[in-house]
């Protein structure tokens, strides 16, 4: 692998039937390329949670993945409402999800904590009214 491999996904907002497509595709790609199983699991979980957040909170967004011999690098960008208090949003159990979202089994307040737990490097930037960018790296 000399050149990094780049993958890009568009996540539509409010469409729960398609949430998980990007993480499923990433998982299959990583498996096919022979990445270590634990790294695949971590990246898949982190990205799935990110996808769900894009659907639930951001009205959709873009996912950019770069695969290098050193890391699985994922960047999630949205132009949603942003996160006013990131420290609060990072707390396990804190959620602003609607009743409808909770009835689907989401909204347990585990999304961002899971994303941080399963990535080796986690960076979040958010501007209320402008959107959120999250970078997650799983190191190999």
């Amino acid at each position, binding site marked *: 692998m000399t050149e990094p491999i780049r993958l890009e996904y568009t996540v539509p907002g409010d469409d729960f039937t398609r949430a998980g497509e990007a993480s499923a595709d990433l998982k299959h790609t990583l498996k096919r390329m022979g990445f270590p199983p634990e790294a695949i699991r971590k990246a898949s979980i982190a990205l799935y949670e990110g996808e769900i957040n894009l659907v639930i909170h951001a009205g959709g967004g873009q996912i950019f993945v770069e695969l290098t011999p050193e890391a699985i690098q994922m960047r999630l960008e949205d132009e949603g409402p942003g996160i006013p208090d990131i420290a609060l949003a990072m707390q396990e159990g804190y959620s602003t999800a609607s009743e409808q979202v909770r009835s689907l089994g989401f909204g347990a307040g585990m*999304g961002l904590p899971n994303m941080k737990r399963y990535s080796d490097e986690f960076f979040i930037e958010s501007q209320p009214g402008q959107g959120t960018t999250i970078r997650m790296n799983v190191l190999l």
Partner: protein
Amino acid sequence: MTNLELENLGFAPAGPVAEHEVTGGFCCDLLSWAMSRCTEGKVWFTVMGNINTVAVASLADAAAVVLCQEAAWMPDALERAAQQGVALFTTDLPAYEAALVLARKLGQL
């Protein structure tokens, strides 16, 4: 054991069952919780029969998902499971009792 033996335990297949080794059971209805804690080879007992359950089961490499207490699989969940090779079952039993059936079979009691 493998997931092919779940039918013998009284769980009804809801679609095609691709063989997968079973290592244990897992009970939970919150998807994010399951995402991080349902590990490979687990039979997942839940009442959430929507397409997102299938997505989580696939990513977590669950051996099967058993929908408990007469809950019904949504049609798009069945379709996605067939595509992704996720084995789905149903049972009339509550999750606790259904998990006990599996635990007895696995000698985990």
